[in-house]
């Protein structure tokens, strides 16, 4: 397969994408979606570890009422930075940019994403945004919470303008990734791959990209208005100058609620892949899962008001938003039922990715169900802005997306790096993270219903025991994550070589590409003849998968 002459990549027949070009420069100006995916993967995991340390700091401070290890202002900066790092630097780019960049073109049977240069630009915008965020942490820090509610964020000190501009820039990185994926899915599918033969991860990433493209610009204008509020005092959000702070909340949540679906949808896509592959079974209700991804993407734009039931929003707007919130709960419920039904009569092997998928299934179910308390107007009044909300969104974000992200990392690790990892250690770390997570956050449900407010540096003595238990849970999570980082690092250096399809999966990146794949993904463009996840029914002989040497 001749590489076209204007192509800058050195043509390497037989070598994988690591060997295609050597040296730092080849990484810095790479246009290969796989290398960009790998670079994102390392940055995103680093952001997760940094955010995790911040969380550890927050929990250690809350070990006992009053000052434990830091002052009130430092605590406020810690939880704000924990929110910003985890949201903007880890979980939004997490699965779409890191795993998605690597896997999407492979699963579509394409050579690369539609706009490779924009893909690299998206990565460098992410790097610039990260540096600005870190700089603003040093140059005065931000203590407004990741939600930047005015008028506090418009009147407090600290480098709020710098942090809002860094979030503004990170938004563009997200837009470019979304834009790239939508065009790639529309225009560059392999011959034979109709919309209903695409893997469900692609459906999920497609739905996520719609949200990224349609919602992130509004975050851009919101942060721009906030920056102008502080710089010129235009008074749109500051009541002292005639503005309306609740209007800021509308602007902010118009982006931020769809953003929480940017976070969970890719996780759902990964879990669909894992459950189908490790039960060797065709996914149950393929079309209903695919359409529920799109349904979530669309309805997610209608429900942001449920963050503002008690914020001074009118009674009638509360009614509308509460009703629509229940509408968006249905597709998520459908997905969970379909995953459980997929396990029926499967051939289930509990390897590490499947353990992560199971913990996703259980924890996301709890996260989703507890959302009902917050969507119902009557109970939300009591539970809003308490630890119940903290527990709810950690169950959905960490119990959901992070478990799916780790499941995806372990699932595609052999494909990305061509090496296996230590299965026993991986299982131990997965169980540790699951146990530690529940110890940390289930106690916060109880704290929340008993009335412990959110973002509290100092709390009443009656909540002390629960806070102690919750802090111990974080230590268990920390242990699990440390073990994971260690054995993954070891696997990079000396892991045993991986075969092209170690899990017997049915998607193109396993059946037609080597581990790690060649520079142009496939030796010749694959042709898709069968529906997705087409595992053989009993009695049917299984078709041999054509895998290069």
């Amino acid at each position: 397969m001749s590489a076209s002459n204007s192509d800058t990549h050195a043509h390497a027949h037989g070598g994988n994408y690591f060997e295609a070009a050597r040296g730092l420069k080849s990484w810095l100006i790479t246009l290969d979606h796989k290398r960009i995916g790998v670079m994102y993967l390392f940055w995103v995991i680093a952001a997760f570890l940094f955010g995790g340390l911040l969380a550890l700091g927050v929990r250690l401070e809350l070990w006992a009422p009053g000052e434990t290890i830091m002052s009130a202002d430092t605590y406020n900066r810690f939880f704000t930075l924990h929110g910003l790092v985890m949201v903007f630097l880890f979980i939004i780019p997490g699965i779409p940019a890191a795993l998605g960049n690597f896997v999407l073109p492979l699963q579509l049977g394409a050579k690369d994403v539609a706009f490779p240069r924009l893909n690299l630009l998206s990565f460098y915008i992410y790097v610039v945004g990260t540096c600005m965020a870190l700089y603003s942490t040093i140059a005065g820090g931000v203590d407004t919470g990741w939600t930047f509610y005015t008028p506090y964020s418009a009147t407090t000190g600290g480098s709020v303008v710098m942090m809002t501009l860094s979030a503004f820039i990170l938004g563009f990185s997200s837009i470019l990734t979304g834009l790239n994926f939508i065009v790639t899915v529309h225009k560059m599918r392999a011959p034979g791959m109709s919309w209903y033969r695409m893997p469900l991860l692609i459906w999920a990433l497609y739905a996520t990209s719609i949200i990224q493209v349609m919602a992130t610009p509004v975050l851009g204008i919101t942060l721009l208005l906030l920056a102008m509020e502080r710089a010129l005092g235009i008074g749109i959000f500051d009541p002292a100058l005639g503005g309306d702070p609740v209007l800021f909340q509308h602007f902010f949540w118009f982006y931020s609620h769809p953003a929480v679906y940017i976070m969970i949808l890719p996780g759902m896509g990964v879990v669909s892949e894992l459950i189908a592959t490790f039960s060797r079974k065709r996914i149950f209700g393929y079309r209903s899962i695919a359409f529920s991804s799109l349904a979530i993407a669309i309805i997610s734009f209608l429900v942001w008001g449920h963050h503002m039931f008690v914020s001074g929003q009118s009674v009638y707007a509360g009614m509308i938003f509460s009703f629509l919130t229940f509408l968006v709960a249905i597709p998520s419920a459908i997905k969970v039922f379909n995953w459980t039904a997929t396990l029926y009569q499967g051939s289930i092997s509990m390897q590490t990715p499947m353990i992560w998928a199971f913990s996703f299934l259980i924890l996301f179910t709890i996260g989703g169900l507890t959302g009902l308390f917050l969507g119902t107007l009557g109970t939300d009044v009591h539970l809003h802005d308490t630890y119940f909300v903290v527990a709810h969104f950690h169950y959905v974000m960490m119990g959901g997306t992070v478990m799916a992200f780790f499941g995806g990392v372990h699932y595609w690790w052999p494909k990305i790096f061509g090496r296996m990892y230590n299965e026993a250690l991986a299982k131990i770390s997965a169980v540790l993270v699951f146990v530690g997570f529940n110890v940390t956050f289930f106690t916060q449900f109880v704290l929340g219903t008993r009335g412990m407010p959110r973002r509290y540096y100092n709390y009443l003595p009656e909540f002390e025991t629960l806070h102690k238990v919750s802090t111990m849970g974080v230590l268990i999570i920390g242990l699990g994550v440390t073990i994971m980082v260690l054995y993954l690092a070891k696997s990079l250096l000396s892991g045993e070589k991986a075969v092209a399809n170690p899990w017997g999966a049915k998607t193109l990146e396993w059946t037609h590409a080597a581990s790690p794949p060649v520079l142009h993904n496939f030796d010749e463009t694959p042709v898709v003849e069968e529906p997705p996840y087409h595992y053989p029914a009993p009695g049917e002989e299984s078709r041999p998968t054509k895998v290069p040497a």
Partner: protein
Amino acid sequence: MSQHDHDGSHAHSHFVPPAKAYWGVFGGLLFLTVVTVAVSRVDLGPFNMLVAMGVATVKALLVGLIFMQLRWDEKLNGTVFGFGLIFVALFFIFTLADIFSRGYVDPVTDNHYLARDQVRALEKDVEKARGGVKYEVGRPSDELPPNEVAPPAPPPAPATEGAAPGSEGAAPAPEGAAPADGAAPAPEGAAPADGAAPAQP
């Protein structure tokens, strides 16, 4: 969805609109600009905004369909643009739904008053009760007294002048003129009644 074709042919089968179409659109846009300006001279009350937006939308359609060749382009690009407009509409509808329905639920009759008409009615009543002194309700006030406004009892306590730190007038100074019954007083509002510009820092 356009399955990419295999023939790899280089011919672009794109339809190129005649130059006459562009000239026509150009003339149309100029004419509509004149119309917009002319219509804005005539005071049609609330319809002014409707007409202005209507004319602007027609101009936008002209630019979009012909200059941007949406009419002869793949249907996909038009749907993408349409989706964008749908989400803009959602943003408008729900935000304004809240801003405009921030009236209050009247305790006695349990029905709901929109803030807009109630504010105007209240201002006239309070002005009448105060003997013509101009009265302006503050910004998006939430609680407004029900229909009858008792003449403001002489303030029992000294009108608490809760001057706020920083820029003046942030604190709604609770006016002594609070009508006696259960409803909240019309808030002084952040900006002082005399409408002076915010104090220069």
